């Protein structure tokens, strides 16, 4: 069995940033493993632009953003094994992987960064009734057909879900000559970024039907149509509003699920809401020396935030290896206040540094105050014009505030003004 200081599982933007950050923090014995034949993860198929505005102050496509990190990885000569599937990770940081060249092999790592990304919710998980013809794809699979393989998976398209990949694919399929008839969104608001709704739907006159869902799929061999219906407040279809739409393709963009099968194998505790690991401010999971970052930890809307988070994880992993563990001087729990679905990190184990808390709200609200409280005492407060579930929020808690937490917990909530 080989010994390696730091093994990074996943070579997408999260894995690459974590590697670069760990290297810059002084750890040189690193290995990145990825199952794909190239680095970059899902970014390789995101050929639209809109990446890197925060990080590089310029608008890049997915592959361009990825290339910036690939170059850093190359320059630092960080070893990468591609086409390599990690089959198992243990609590003790033994990694079992497989590829064509080396067969099945094992590595003992001192620290591990989990950066496996996420997958899309499938039809089965959505429980849509009807036939099982060809022509039903997740938006990401359709994206792969078009952008990587160069084939058109549909001509008359209905999209269920207004997640970002669905919106991007509405535009992409239209540009390729397909007719996108409508986008149905179960919720009364879109799950995607506002800029994508404008640039991908409005600019192409594609209607977005909020509070609508697909109740049935028709067609024996290939999709021939779908029945859509409005939903009531409890999200149940109102069958009187059912409407048949003729189409040959149904694309699903109904949310992403972090791919935590390996984390489960390592008995890492997961957060029920995020679907990712429960972590502290260093992005360390409850298994010592195993870190998580990127979409495997929680689903991000912007890759810039992924890189930021991965740097924290990479640095944490380097420190862990150098110091043989951490000096944890507190354990402050993050608890959920009004309108907040989750926070990352879920707890804070050191008050030596400022900590940025990321969170998502559960509904769209205008004119609000974001608040963090220690018991009844407000320790952070900021007004915002608008918050939406599709856009991640963050607040910074200063180190001196952390040092004075009395209740042992910080509650993040959103207060509606007016």
């Amino acid at each position, binding site marked *: 069995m080989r010994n390696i200081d730091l093994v990074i599982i996943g070579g997408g933007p999260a894995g690459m940033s974590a590697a670069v950050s760990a290297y810059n923090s002084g750890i040189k014995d690193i290995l990145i493993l990825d*199952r794909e034949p190239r680095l970059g993860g899902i970014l390789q198929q995101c050929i639209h632009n809109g990446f890197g505005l925060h990080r590089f102050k310029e608008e890049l496509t997915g592959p361009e953003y990825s290339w910036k990190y690939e170059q850093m990885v190359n320059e630092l000569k960080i070893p990468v094994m591609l*086409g390599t*599937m990690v*089959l198992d990770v243990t609590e003790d940081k033994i990694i*079992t992987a*497989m*590829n*064509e*060249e*080396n*067969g*099945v092999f094992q590595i003992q790592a001192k620290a591990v960064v989990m950066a496996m990304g996420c*997958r*899309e919710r*499938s*039809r*089965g*998980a959505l*429980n849509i*009734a*009807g*036939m*099982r*013809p*060809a*022509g039903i*794809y*997740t938006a*990401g*699979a359709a994206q*792969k*057909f*078009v952008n*990587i*393989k*160069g*084939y*058109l*998976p*549909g*001509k008359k398209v209905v999209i269920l879900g207004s997640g970002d990949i669905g919106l991007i694919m509405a535009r992409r399929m239209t540009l*390729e*000559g397909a007719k996108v008839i409508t986008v149905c969104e179960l919720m009364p608001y879109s799950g995607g970024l506002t800029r994508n709704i404008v640039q991908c739907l409005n600019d192409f006159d594609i209607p977005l039907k909020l509070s609508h869902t697909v*109740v*049935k799929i028709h067609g024996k*061999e*290939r999709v021939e149509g779908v029945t859509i219906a409005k939903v009531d407040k409890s999200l149940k*279809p109102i069958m009187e509003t059912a409407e048949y739409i003729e189409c040959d393709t149904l694309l699903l963009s109904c949310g992403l699920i972090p791919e935590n*099968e390996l984390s*489960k194998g390592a008995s890492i505790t997961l957060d029920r809401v995020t679907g990712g690991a429960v972590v502290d401010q260093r992005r360390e999971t409850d298994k010592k020396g195993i870190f998580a970052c990127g979409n495997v930890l929680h689903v991000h809307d912007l890759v810039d935030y992924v890189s930021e988070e991965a740097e924290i994880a990479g640095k944490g992993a380097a420190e862990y290896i150098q110091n043989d563990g951490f000096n944890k001087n507190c354990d402050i729990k993050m608890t959920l206040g009004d309108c907040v679905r989750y926070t990352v990190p879920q707890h804070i184990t050191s008050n030596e540094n400022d900590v940025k808390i990321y969170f998502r709200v559960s509904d769209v609200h205008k004119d609000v105050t974001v608040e963090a409280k220690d018991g009844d005492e407000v320790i952070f407060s900021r007004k915002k014009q608008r918050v939406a579930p599709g856009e991640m929020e963050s607040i910074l808690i200063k180190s001196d505030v952390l040092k004075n937490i009395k209740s042992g917990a910080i509650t993040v909530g959103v207060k509606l003004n007016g």
Partner: protein
Amino acid sequence: MYDVVIIGAGVVGGFIARELSRYKLNICLLEKENDVAMGASRANSGIVHAGFDALTGTKKAEFNVLGAKIMKRVTDELGVKYKNNGSLVVAYSEEELPTLQKLYERGVANGVENLQIIDKAKLLELEPNLTDSAVAALYAPTAGIVCPYELTIAAVGNAMDNGAELKLDFDVKSIRRNGDFYEISSENETVECKYLVNAAGVHSDNIAALIGDTSFNVTARKGEYLLLDKEFGTMASHTIFRCPTSMGKGILVSPTVDGNLILGPTSVNIDDKDNNETTPEGLSEIMSKTLAVMPKAPLRSVITSFCGVRAVPSTGDFIIEKAADGFVNCAGIESPGLSSAPAIAPYVVELLKGMGLSLEENESFNPIRKPAHLFREMSMEDKNKVIAENPKYGKVVCRCETVTEGEIVEAIHTNPKATSVDAIKRRTRSGMGRCQGGFCAPTVVEILARELDIPFEAVTKSGGNSIINYGRIK
């Protein structure tokens, strides 16, 4: 000219073909779909019933008990997974206890071994996730589970390895008696045979009618299912039925051999015999009935739903008999048809023998088929030997089920050969996992195109017009 033609490549037709391939005979299976196991044998509960359900003295009872007894041996030969997990019929009130007793007595009369009625304490010990309102159960340790399409594919494959032929996309439209033989035609092809077996499942009455036999009919009754993520495959370890009441049969909760949890089926008669669509009502019925018996069932973790169609015979029993000279019906094989198929086959061969078919032993007959999932069960050392010889086994295509390119290529070149994405899925489990092919489908399409030497856009999901792509982008 074939000696025997079998119409229908379901589990029944498949086992009959395999049984016949023990002899020096020209055998052909005709199947209207683009793959084998596309009827009831594709979508059912996968339960090897113990045999207490059917009325004593019926063919159902006889073949079920016998089939269950030989299932272990047969699945070993065919390299198919089988688990003897035992079944429980659970009573949820005192009023249901007499029914349990009746089932127990019937089972004993049918020859089911080791049946016992167990009390609540024992029951909850066996199945701790069951609702507390359970009172007792009939425990059948001889029951088991198999994957129905895996079993069918293996039976047909083994028959083919031993010389039988398979014609797919052959929808039998007419049968003509011509002197001593039969002419069987689809729209564009005709084959001839001396003996003809009708194993056309839900369509077996239509096939019988083609030779003028209208002595029975077959009603289509659909059954919908939900399949849960492997993470919850251990929520139940036995197959759990609900004691039948005046309110109906209830649904079952069972692990599958592949480690998922299966819930279903519903039971609704339908007119269109090929209508295997799931319905919102059906899926919600399964959910509510599951929660009634297993309150903690993780219904959030559904990975797919599907629907099978039962072939319910008007006679109430399997119809396995000579219907005309050289013609045998094997019709209306509803549940427990999967459990019974390995026992039905030798009986049909005996019938044919009685009708004059001469059986000369085929010395080269090999009952053993290499398991489809051999690679994933290997030790690390053995895997490395295989990968060193063929690196494609080191390349994972389906990440949810860890299926390698080597296994996919093998499925394309092993009898009965896979020619579509769904056919690959049924043979290798690629795309069967939690992402349901979201990631691997494009790669599987690519491998199929390469191995079959056809254009990318000619690859289908399941044959016919089920195209996946409309050609190159602009």
